[in-house]
């Protein structure tokens, strides 16, 4: 009797086997995320030319805008310089930074979600035991990101081709390029950490740095020529100059960065075991000192608080250091000089710059507060809250620990941003710190909404991200557009006094603080009354 033999086919190891199946599966899982993201970006690009046309109807009005931007370093830092006065150029300018950042965020989320998330949850083990090549999962994740970015590029090109095909092509490809740079960056980081959360955080940190560099560069030059701008992929998008004498070779920068990062990601992925990472988990203490729900919440979130603190301190310091230069740069433009004078001279320009930057940091701090509040949601749905709450810990005490970190942490990072700002600027710190603390009222309202969503409609708790996104969109893109006042008023940040420079108004700040307190109270009441989501 002979043993049955297995058929062993000689030949290639088929490292990519199963990629197609995994890609279809990934696209199915992202069937909501990708279309929504392309839709939001598409809508922004689609409506922009007409909005701009109604705002700046004549070439003279557009020239005036260009002059204003040349004078206004704080607006430049926020949204980049205006490089041309055609409707296409203005659209690319107005949408560029926001759409680029959104492309980067979505791409990094998609890649981490289909790589490290799958490994961390243990699902990848089952997938990898099938007829799936060693490189298939990473390839499918990158192809998913590529498909999303291609869809975005096509949409943008189709929408803008009426303004000229060359510029539309440059802008669409540039956005997709930014997306793919961060997709491949996330692919590298996902090899380094065992935690998907950390991978997302680190890649988002790189994006934050890219944003700060571009903003810093654009604050000190009015044509994107600063070396700081060239260090940032978001700056490359600007320097591709859609509708302003396209520099096609900049696309090669994107291509080179994407290729180099993809090669690095594959090299790292090929050198490690499933579920392992290059920053491995070290053993911990055999006995612990954690003794309360609040201590646990702090322990779980302290890494995030540290990261955000460093980021905000550095961002504040960079912008503080630029304030003087930004206020000095007026150029030979008469219109610009007139505008500066109208804004209150050099001191007024400096104040306006500080105010704009502090306002932007406040908007970004809203993302921190949402992430931190939603840890409650994560703890609850992962099943980790269940045994904690089966101990002698009431729900309020459990929630209070995380909310303390969320709300206290957002005040802390704004304070650190102010401290960094004051250090970088080198003038007296009081007004800047005050301006930063005022932002906290707006941040806390967003946090309160997140608490309410988690308490009252736990199934839709992640909609809090939508709230933060909407607030960012309103604060970032809204003011320069012809958006109805009622829409602008939806964002709590729109009600805050413009500090420093403007008068301090206590009333809106107090109203927002009360509103935040009411939202938190309502959310906690709802949390106490409902079933846990287990």
């Amino acid at each position, binding site marked *: 009797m002979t043993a049955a033999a297995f058929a062993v086919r000689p030949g290639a190891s088929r490292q990519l086997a199963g990629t197609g199946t995994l890609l279809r599966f990934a696209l199915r899982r992202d069937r909501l995320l990708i279309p929504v993201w392309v839709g939001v970006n598409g809508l922004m690009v689609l409506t922009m030319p007409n909005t701009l046309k109604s705002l700046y109807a004549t070439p003279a009005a557009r020239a005036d805008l260009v002059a204003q931007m040349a004078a206004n370093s704080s607006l430049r830092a926020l949204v980049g310089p205006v490089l041309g006065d055609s409707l296409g150029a203005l659209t690319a300018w107005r949408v560029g930074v926001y759409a680029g950042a959104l492309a980067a965020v979505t791409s990094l989320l998609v890649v981490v979600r289909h790589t490290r998330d799958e490994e*961390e949850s243990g699902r990848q083990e089952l997938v990898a035991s099938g007829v799936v090549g060693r490189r298939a999962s990473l390839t499918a994740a990158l192809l998913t990101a590529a498909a999303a970015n291609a869809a975005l590029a096509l949409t943008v090109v189709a929408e803008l081709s009426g303004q000229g095909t060359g510029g539309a092509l440059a802008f669409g490809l540039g956005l997709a390029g930014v997306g793919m740079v961060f997709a491949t960056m996330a692919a590298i980081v996902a090899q380094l950490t*065992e*935690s998907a959360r950390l991978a997302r955080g680190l890649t988002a940190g790189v994006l934050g740095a890219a944003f700060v560099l571009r903003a810093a560069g654009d604050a000190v030059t009015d044509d994107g020529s600063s070396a700081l701008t060239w260090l940032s992929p978001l700056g490359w998008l600007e320097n591709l100059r859609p509708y302003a004498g396209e520099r096609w070779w900049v696309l090669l920068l994107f291509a080179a960065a994407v290729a180099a990062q993809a090669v690095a990601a594959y090299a790292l992925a090929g050198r490690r075991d499933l579920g392992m990472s290059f920053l491995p*988990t*070290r*053993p*911990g*203490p*055999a*006995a*612990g*000192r*954690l*003794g*309360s*729900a609040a201590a*646990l919440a702090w*322990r*779980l979130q302290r*890494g995030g608080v540290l990261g955000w603190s460093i980021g905000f301190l550095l961002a504040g310091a960079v912008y503080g250091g630029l304030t003087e230069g930004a206020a000095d740069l007026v150029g030979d433009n008469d219109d610009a000089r007139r505008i500066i004078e109208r804004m209150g001279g050099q001191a007024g320009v400096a104040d306006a710059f500080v105010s704009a930057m502090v306002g932007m940091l406040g908007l970004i701090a809203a993302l921190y507060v949402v992430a931190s509040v939603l840890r409650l949601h994560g703890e609850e749905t*992962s*099943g*980790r809250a*269940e*045994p*904690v*709450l*089966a*101990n*002698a*810990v*009431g729900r309020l005490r459990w929630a209070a620990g995380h909310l303390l970190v969320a709300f206290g942490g957002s005040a802390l990072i704004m304070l650190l941003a102010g401290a960094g700002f004051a250090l970088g600027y080198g003038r007296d710190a009081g007004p800047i710190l005050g301006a930063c603390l005022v932002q906290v009222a707006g941040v806390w309202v967003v946090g309160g909404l997140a608490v309410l969503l988690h308490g009252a409609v736990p199934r839709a708790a992640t909609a809090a991200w939508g709230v933060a996104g909407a607030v960012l969109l309103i604060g970032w893109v809204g003011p320069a557009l012809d958006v109805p006042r009622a829409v602008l008023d939806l964002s709590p940040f729109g009600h805050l006094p413009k500090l420093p420079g403007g008068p301090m108004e206590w009333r809106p700040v107090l109203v927002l603080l009360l509103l935040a307190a009411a939202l938190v109270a309502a959310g906690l009441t709802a949390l106490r*009354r*409902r*079933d*846990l989501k*287990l």
Partner: protein
Amino acid sequence: METSHLAIEVSGLHKSFGRTHALDGLDLEVRAGEVHGFLGPNGAGKSTAVRVLLGLLRADSGTARILGRDPWADAVAAHRRIAYVPGDVTLWRNLSGGEVIDLYGRLRGGLDARRRDGLIERFELDPTKKGRTYSKGNRQKVALVAAFASDVDLLILDEPTSGLDPLMEEVFQRCVTEERDRGRTVLLSSHILSEVEELCDRVSIIRKGRTVESGSLTDLRHLTRTSVTAELAGPPDGLSRLPGVHGLEVRRTGPGQGRRVRLQVDTDKLDAVLRSLGASGVRSLTSTPPTLEELFLRHYQDEAPEGVSAR
């Protein structure tokens, strides 16, 4: 009010999630100091019942008392005297097992450090590893050590041994026995029948959110049939007329009068059968009590006809 001898008292408990009726009039009584087996097929509502008892879910109707308290309104006070091991233990990826054990102990109001160290040794757990690096069985050990090391009156264990190897299963059984000897009450939801048979004083079987059987194993056994095989010196007399006898088979064992008899009998009618057999001169006798499996199959199977389930 004479409720002090009941650690858990549940009657007519209802809980629905949308259109699913997870609990449909559940009754459960766990006496202080006993190990109570809580049995039922997957999806019968065991975990839902446990979560209502822990105040994590709120019952739609019915009453529940745990250690004499309302599990929803008085959750925190009750939890001081309760240790819970969930069926699926999830740990924080960046906390070591030892940290989690100590955290749970402190959140409950303290744990016995000597006992904790002893348990870690007995369960052969490495407390320095971090969350994600533990296997399923080791994650369960973390929760078990935390539960057994704490000073509580009631242990609620929801399928706590599904990931343990046989050696650890034995350690677990010894720990439960020790807990009972220390006067503690244990509610043990389990699918491992040998474990239930070994440990539990009484069991409740639930199906579709309702209690279908409750009592001591001895009580429950009486509800089913015992198999008897006997070799007799002479032909049996009147066996087939006895009440409660089923499936009687009589065979000659040789050229003489010897007979081999096989039958099944309702366990509470066993006595009369043995007398009747004795009258014919018993040469050998084997009697097999109903297995727990038979008990379960009878209650788990949908519309199981009695003959099938008792086999």
